[in-house]
Every structure is written in C-alpha cells, then in structure tokens.
C-alpha cells in the first residue's frame, strides 16, 4: 500500500478511536505505530511524546506530524495530520448541526446544566494535574500567583497571551543566565 495512504488511514483510526486526545492516544499510538507497523520503536515514541508535549500545539497533531515526517517527509506529515483531524471534524459537524435545537428540549437543557458543573470540575482537575507536573519552587509559586491574580482582576482580551509570552521569555532568559553562570564557575 502507498505509504501516505497508510499513514492517513492509521492516523485516521487513532483520531477516530481516542477520546480527549493527548495522553489518551498513547496506548493506541503504541499499538499501531510501534507494535503493528514498526514505524518507530518504543524509545522513539517516548522522544516523540516528549517533544509533542514540550512544544506548542495540539499533542495529537504534533505526534502525527512527527511520525508522518519520519515515514514520508512533508506529504507524510500532511497525510498523517489530516488523518488524525478528519474524524473529529466530521463527528463534530454532525453534532453541531443538531445541538442547538437539541438544547431547546427541557430535559436536555437540564442535563447540560448539570454537565456544565461537571466540566468545571474537569477543568479544575486539569489545573491540578498541570500543577503537580511543575517543580515546586518559590519562583513558580510567584508566577502562578501573578497569572492568577492578574487574570482575576484585569479584563483584557490578550492578557493570557501576554502572560504566556512573558512566561516563555522569563524561562528562556532565566535558563540562559543560569547556564552562563554555571559555565563561568
């Protein structure tokens, strides 16, 4: 079979059968890419996930682009990314077509009122999960408090964006200074 078509179909399957994206995809990625196709070995997969997680973007698409490039260059990336995105795209359009009318039914509206409370907890738990992953240093606590405080008290459409850019520059420069100091010593 054509490599690009194979990439497309494999990632289509990964996109169609994982809920939530990101880490939920890891078992299926391992099964499809490492065990069945042998496109990457286990170490390469771990590297790929480390890069996907440490760089901006959607983890699923990062992984697809990465494997696609390794197997089939630019068009391989393209085929794999398209594959991982398309199932979502079709399913969501189908849902979106009916959702607004659906919500007008009283029972459904009640259910979704409950669900919104549940989703709030999901978001809170995601915040806790991210918190557990970061080093517990005074600087990090300060940055969290700063981001929290500013976004609670300021109303500005690009505030999050500015804070994220600030975080990147802050971390980058901090690390450069630290490395420079260590080299001098």
């Amino acid at each position, binding site marked *: 079979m054509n490599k690009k078509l194979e990439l497309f179909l494999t990632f289509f399957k990964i996109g169609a059968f994982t*809920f*939530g*994206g990101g880490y939920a995809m890891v078992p299926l990625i391992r099964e499809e890419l490492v065990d069945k196709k042998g496109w990457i070995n286990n170490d390469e997969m771990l590297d790929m996930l480390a890069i996907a997680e440490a760089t901006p973007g959607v983890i699923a698409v990062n992984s697809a682009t990465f494997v696609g490039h390794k197997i089939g260059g630019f068009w391989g990336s393209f085929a794999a990314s398209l594959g991982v995105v398309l199932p*979502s795209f079709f*399913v969501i359009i189908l849902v979106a077509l009916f959702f607004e009318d659906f919500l007008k039914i009283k029972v459904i509206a009640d259910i979704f009122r*409950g669900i919104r*409370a549940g989703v709030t907890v999901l978001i809170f738990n995601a915040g806790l999960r991210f918190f557990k992953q970061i080093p517990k240093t005074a600087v990090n606590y300060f940055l969290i408090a700063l*981001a929290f405080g500013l976004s609670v008290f300021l109303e500005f459409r690009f505030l999050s964006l500015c804070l994220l850019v600030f975080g990147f520059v802050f971390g980058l420069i901090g690390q450069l200074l630290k490395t420079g100091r260590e080299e001098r010593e």
Partner: protein
Amino acid sequence: MIYLELFLVFFLVGLFTIGGGYAMIPMLQEQIVGRGWLEAEDLLNVFAISESTPGPFAVNTATFVGYDLGGVLGSAVATIGVVLPSFIIILIIARFIYNFLEYKSIRTGFETVKVIVVGLIFAVVLELILKNVFGDGFDLKSFDFVAFGIMVSVFFLKLVFKKLSAIKIIIISGILGLIFYGIFPL
C-alpha cells in the same frame, strides 16, 4: 471578516497551547467569550461535547466554535488554524533541530509557559464556579445549590475513584442535572 478572524484566533490558540487541550481553555475563554462569539455557558457545553466525542479536544472545540460562527467553512478555517502551528513547528524540529530536547533554554521557556497556564486555569475555574453558582450576578438569593452540589460531589468522586474517566464524570453530572433540575427540582 469572520473567517479570517476565526483563523487568526485559533492559530494563536494553537500556537500558545503547550501540554494538551485543557491548557488552551484560558485563551479560548478570553477570545471566544471576550469577542462575544459565545456565552461562557455555551463554551462549557462545547467543552463537554469535545470531551465526549472522539478526537483531540483542541480540534473538536475549534470545529464546533467554527461551525457555530461560520458553518462548515468556518469549521474548516478554525480547525486549520488550530492545527497549523503544530504542523509548522514539528516540521521545523523534525527537519532542522534533531536534538531539540537538548536545547535547555527553549525547553525551560516552554516549561515556564506551563507554570503560567496553572495560574490562568485556576482563574478560569474560579470564574466558572461563580458563574455556575450565582449566574451573572452575585445575588445570594440565586445561589444554585444543585450546581454547587454537583461540583462538590463529582470532585470527591474523582478523588475516591482516581480512574474515573472524563466521560463518566460528564455522564454522572448529566444524570444529577436531570434528576435535580428536572425530575425533583430543589
């Protein structure tokens, strides 16, 4: 023009999402509710649907919001926008920066972005809790005990049953909503 705006907003969201779907919620909230595209409640509905349908959370959300604002073309534009930064960045890394993981300063930069995300998410959560419980104002009389109760019970359920998946949490809170808003309203 709505299509260009959709593309740019989701491109920015994709570009500044590090570490997975939920990291993009603060920016989505700011951009989508801030621009008056959706109400905060609608966006929560979208998150619920994105979490309970197959595929990456970020792509699902982009497709849904895009469809709401600009039909199928809107979906396509928003989805391409959210995906493109991933695609470009990973291609650059795969092609030119084989040893990306050794660039400590860039990695620390991205790590620090994740620290900021924690603060931003907790701010969004605070806002959402207030919104669920009090609605748009801060009137104590409109305190929504059901929403409060669902949040507390689902939180503790997840604490006790660590394996409880997001979809199950959504189903449970939906059932609780059906019972306490619909069948036996408090």
